[in-house]
């Protein structure tokens, strides 16, 4: 019991076992910070529920993306990319957000920045496959950081 209490009090210092500042490249602090600010004093229930909700969302979306890739549904892929872009941006998960934006653009038959058209659907699909593979890794990385941040030992 005592140990639990100690862990909780660590939480409130917002440092926890992980320094989020060490991961600026994957988590944009200002965005994530303002969600942490919404936590009640002394716990991180709100931000944690948001973050863990995002985990579920991301994993489901990745699955959907895989399915859409096998059915070559570019439109759906673009939509899924857009969808996950919104929530990852809200949490400040920069890398995931950027990749999702690329998938959105590829799915819209554009290049990754969304400026030039990409006439070859197979090329678009290949681009998405590659991006999806990478974004999954990025996601794993950031999920690991966040889980550690929330003291989740089940990695």
């Amino acid at each position, binding site marked *: *019991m005592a*140990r*639990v209490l100690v*862990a*909780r009090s660590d939480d409130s210092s917002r440092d926890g076992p992980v320094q989020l500042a060490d991961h600026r490249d994957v988590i944009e602090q*200002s*965005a994530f910070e*303002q*969600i942490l*600010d*919404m936590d*009640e*004093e002394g*716990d991180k*229930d*709100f931000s*944690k*529920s*948001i973050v*863990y*909700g*995002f985990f579920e*969302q991301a994993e489901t979306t990745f699955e959907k993306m895989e399915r859409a890739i096998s059915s070559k549904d570019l439109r759906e892929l673009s*939509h899924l990319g*857009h*969808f996950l*872009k*919104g*929530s990852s*941006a*809200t*949490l*400040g998960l920069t890398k995931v957000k950027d990749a999702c934006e690329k998938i959105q653009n590829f799915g819209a038959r554009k290049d990754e920045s969304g400026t030039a058209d990409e006439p070859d659907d197979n090329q678009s699909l290949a681009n998405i496959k590659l991006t999806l593979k990478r974004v999954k890794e990025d996601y794993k990385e950031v999920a690991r950081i966040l889980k550690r941040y*929330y*003291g*989740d*030992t*089940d990695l």
Partner: protein
Amino acid sequence: MESSSAAAASAAAGNSSDFVRKLYKMLEDPSYSEIVRWGDEGDSFVVLECEKFTKTILPKHFKHSNFASFVRQLNKYDFHKVRQNNEETGQSPYGPNVSCLLSLSLWIFVCYSHLCQVVLAAWEIRMVSHVDRAQAWEFKHPEFKANSKDSLDNIRRKAPAPRKAAPIIEEAVPTQQLDLMNQQIVAQQQQIQHLSDRYAQLTVDHQLMLQEVMRVQKTVRNHENVIHQVMNFLLSLDARQRRDSRIAASFQGQGQDPSTLSPSQLAPMDDVPASPLQHASKLLNDMNTEIQFNLTGLDSLSDPSKNPAIISTPPLDNGPRNGTVRPATSAGSSSTMGFSKMNGELDPVVYPVGATNGIDPMYGEHVNNIPYSMPPKELDPSDPRRQYTDVRKKSTYVDPGWVRNPHILLVEDDDTCRQVGGKFLHSFSCVIDTAFDGLEAVGKLQNGSKYDLILMDIIMPNLDGVSACHLIRQFDRTPIIAMTSNIRSDDIQLYFQHGDFPLCMDDVLPKPFTRKSLIEMLEKHLVHLKSLPQVIEAPPTSATAVAIAAQNSAPHSVKEDSSPGQSPATSMNNWQSPSQLQGVNVQQVQGQYVQQSPTAATFAVDQNGVQYQATQASLSAAAVAAARPPHRRQASEISSAADIAGFSKRPRVYPQPT
């Protein structure tokens, strides 16, 4: 608190509660059987390894890792810990159970324990060989059984009131008394919480009422002003007409073309205005004095001690009044200069119709009555006012000072964004309704739900934001803010060019939104819900910080000080009248304002919210500093006097928009 009240709500709705269902779900997972599992009879469950349970399972299912609060939650649902039943051996079937910290409803348990005694003894023999030696916790609830999901619905949250303990037959009396007391304390805390919530609510209601009254007053005053303008215009028209007719009659002219004469030139030449007009203006004047009398009564009736924003508004004909009421040393006319200067800048906002010929001497005052001329930049996050509301929460829960809580509809298909957005809005004291997509949003509005603002995602399933907006616009004019994650500005430009936004959307909020962008948007479109302007915008001084730190929720006594030469420390000392013991003076020094305007009106609010116009001066900084202290003391001395009505009338000073 939030989650527990939510649980209570769902329990009240007749469904099994989240907590119980989560618990059941958790027990269904066979992979946990080493840590937590159903009891052998299926009528209880056992936490075999408390540590692992706390660290791994609790976070997954209950989103926290606090065993104590888990147990507390169990208790709330009338689960109780199964105590050691076989004293003979000193061991529970699942491990060496130490104490029963939180057992409740003992009599139920007692019945059960007697029933189960025999069975348990048998378990003991069976189990003890492979049972983990760590502390095991067994909980049970009569309705909580393996394979009977239906009975979950019968598990309800207990009423918060403490229960009378049944006569305690068994051992461990002290522990139970402790439990009981703890429970009572909790219950009392809840009651206190409830009362203070209620009190807060009433305070808010009270404020809202007052604000409403003030608003009505203002409207009346605005109308008054319009009437005055019209009257003036009519008078000049009348004068011109008569002059024209005179000229026409005499047909000689006076060597001067009447059309070159301005109305003001004509007016004085008019000896006899049309009698209906004369009559009307006389009526108006009579009415004015009467109205002001009433308003004075209202002002003194209202007790705005809780809200610095509730400041008595100046009467219509403040000009002459100022002269008489003002403390003798104040430099009277200077204040009007200041006002008319501001007046020039704010005019367009105040009178879109344009009748701003400046004839009316009371016009300058009028500007100060307009709540919606405040520039949106008022919500600077460093603004000390935003920290009043809830200091303990790292100043994240801000009250932007609404007249009432704005109702916002958040239309968003993305769960994360919806929750975060909802939370942010909540922190701005908004009442939030959410819709998953455009269809649901349109449905809500069609069903008569009224909102002050709609935040609408663009790309959504079923019905996208733009289409939803078009539909809503068929019957509703609620401001709609598009939220789009096409962050680049040229995309937004594109929306505008396509004509979608001007037609239906009122604005665009780029996603991901921040708290800042969100509140700015609210400020911009909910100006009419802003309470009376908080007079002077100011950077927090050190004195302010101290003052804020020193108080949490005590009524704020706000002193607005725009004079340059007064150091915060001095004025604090001078102004700590006994009636202010509880309150806190928050001093705001507006450097920017001071630079731009040579005048400064100073007034202060005492504990009871009664204001005194301490001084109005355009003196030099030094002169102000020298002249002020006696004044202030004088003002505070009068604070208990009954006849304060006259003093409560004063102009308010607004920051000049920059």
